[in-house]
């Protein structure tokens, strides 16, 4: 009862002094607001990205891995030189896997040609990812068609010049006409004529990059039109995520045999990777962002705490007489101590709430501008307000102690 009354009393005083000194309050709380807002903004954005990334990479899913000459992520020039010295991945490798791997479900070959110019009459689409793939790749990539059909095995082996296009191609070349109208049209891919037989469903964008700016063409047709690529990428799909590891082991063994390597060799001579590589890279990047943010936030919270301590000391001095009055009517040391602590906590908690609001606001603004989703985390809001309250307790304790220790006679004499 007594504590509730004291809390309410302290809360009213804090609110009144905040109202009385709006500018001073705002400046006092700046450090805490910035610190909390930074954490909230970054957490909100990264949580949003996490979800996007998870959704995106699950389209191929955790049942697929690739075998390639170079890994998808290369971090140094030395590595690049080393990887370039490896033998190319060839059709023979793919055939060997297909023949020897009993646990493999689907095996596809892909060659990628990014940044290709595609034209239809005077309409053009730039930076298109053109992929020469064998038929299983459409299933492995889980390509769903909005219109038309995939090519047949006959068309594949006969190297028919047909293609399945992404939604961006439709927008760029046919002004967003319905997918059905694109079927049968002849477009030019890097100058070579291809007939559209299928249009894929729209996938949307991630981090502002479209995932619909692609064209699939039959692997044989790709070779015929653009020449044999030096090294291929083989994609292998397991029947389930549980089997993935076994399938990987089997393919790795087959490939090591073909490269004359054993598990004792330091380098397999090829890269066997799932999309976890991207997830790992992403996680490493975001954890660095978290670290930097925590650093920035800590500095602003420390500075903010010192400012709050300073302002609380000023407040104690300004209100010496008030403290004297309270002591004269029966406030004990701990009552005064509690009052000023609560006041400091209310002050910094308000800063925390403003910081949380500002942080969410910034995250939304940025997310809206860059076109990716955000995810509000209630925990980050609770954490933001709690941390700022703890700052209040820490920075309020010395001023509160000084207030509590004031001699009532002296305090009543103060002006």
């Amino acid at each position, binding site marked *: 009862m*007594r504590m509730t009354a*004291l809390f309410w009393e302290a809360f009213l005083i804090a609110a009144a002094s905040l109202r009385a000194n709006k500018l001073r309050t705002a400046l006092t709380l700046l450090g805490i607001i910035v610190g909390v807002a930074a954490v909230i903004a970054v957490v909100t954005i990264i949580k949003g990205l996490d979800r996007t990334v998870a959704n995106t990479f699950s389209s191929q899913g955790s049942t697929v891995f690739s075998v390639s000459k170079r890994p998808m992520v290369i971090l140094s020039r030395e590595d690049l030189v080393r990887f370039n010295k490896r033998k190319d991945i060839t059709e023979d490798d793919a055939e060997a896997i297909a023949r020897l791997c009993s646990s493999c479900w689907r095996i596809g070959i892909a060659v990628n040609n990014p940044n290709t110019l595609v034209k239809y009459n005077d309409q053009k689409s730039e930076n298109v990812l053109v992929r020469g793939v064998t038929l299983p790749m459409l299933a492995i990539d889980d390509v769903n068609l909005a219109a038309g059909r995939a090519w047949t095995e006959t068309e594949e082996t006969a190297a028919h010049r047909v293609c399945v296009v992404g939604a961006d191609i439709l927008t760029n070349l046919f002004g967003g006409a319905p997918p059905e109208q694109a079927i049968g049209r002849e477009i030019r891919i890097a100058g070579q004529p291809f007939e559209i037989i299928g249009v894929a469903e729209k996938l949307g964008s991630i981090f502002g990059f479209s995932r619909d700016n692609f064209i699939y063409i039959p692997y044989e047709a790709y070779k015929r039109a653009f020449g044999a690529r030096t090294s291929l990428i083989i994609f292998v799909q397991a029947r389930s995520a549980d089997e993935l590891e076994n399938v990987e082991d089997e393919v790795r063994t087959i490939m090591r045999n073909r490269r004359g390597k054993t598990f004792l060799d330091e380098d397999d001579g090829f890269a066997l990777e799932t999309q976890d590589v991207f997830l790992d890279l992403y996680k490493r990047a975001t954890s660095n962002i978290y670290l930097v943010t925590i650093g920035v936030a800590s500095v602003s919270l420390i500075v903010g705490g010192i400012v709050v301590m300073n302002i609380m000391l000023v407040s104690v001095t300004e209100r010496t007489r008030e403290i004297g*009055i309270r*002591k*004269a*009517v029966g406030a*004990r040391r701990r*009552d005064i101590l509690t009052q000023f602590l609560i006041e400091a906590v209310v002050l910094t908690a308000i800063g925390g709430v403003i910081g949380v609001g500002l942080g969410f606001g910034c995250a939304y603004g940025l997310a809206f501008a860059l076109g990716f989703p955000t995810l509000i985390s209630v925990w980050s809001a609770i954490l933001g307000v709690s941390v700022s309250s703890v700052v209040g307790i820490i920075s309020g304790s010395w001023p509160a102690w000084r207030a509590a220790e004031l001699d009532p*006679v002296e305090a*009543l004499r103060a002006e």
Partner: protein
Amino acid sequence: MLTAQVQEEIVPYGELLAQEAVPAALISMRDIWRTYQMGEEQVHALRGVSFDVQKGEYVAIIGPSGSGKSTLMNIIGCLDTPTRGRYWINGKLVSEMDDDELARIRNKEVGFVFQTFNLLPRATALHNVELPLIYAGVPAAERRERAKRALMAVDLADRMMHKPNELSGGQRQRVAIARALVNHPSILLADEPTGALDTATSREIMNLFERLHEEGNTIIIVTHEPDIAARAHRIISIRDGRIEKDERVK
């Protein structure tokens, strides 16, 4: 135990008697000294003050400035503790109490009225009067009710929600008196209560004190004004830290 014995050896015989019996008076002071250390020098604000105040008395403490009357008032009100001597309120030896116990005595036994009112400027009259009850741990509803009654008792029923700067000097002092009385203290202790008021308002406040006295309150007024002191029933004159005169006038 040993220290107690040593103390007893140096206490004069007369005081030893006083020490043993807990006085029946409301206020009882025995050889109160208050000494301040000013650098190298010791300044004695009080030099052995002894007196009793019975329940229901109306006492004025007078003396020129620097006589020690403010120090005496602070000690009576338990804002300060004597350097030496013994002081009882209601049979409780307050001169030996620690800070928290003194805060409790100030809360329950003493109601202060100050020259400069000492109200919280940002709080309403009602909230100012509630303040002692907050520290007494009185539940909110009862607190509010008692504070309202105390304000009505000083004829401020229509000013409860006003802040001090919206009230006249006399009204402010009446709020302060309501605050002093709200927790039913044993002593109403007023320090120059009319010092900041004009003559007419002073008279009004002094009439209020008279009424409160008739209602059974024990009142101690510290003042340097003879006409204020003349309203009391007993005048204690202080000079140079000692009681110069202690006379019953009514």
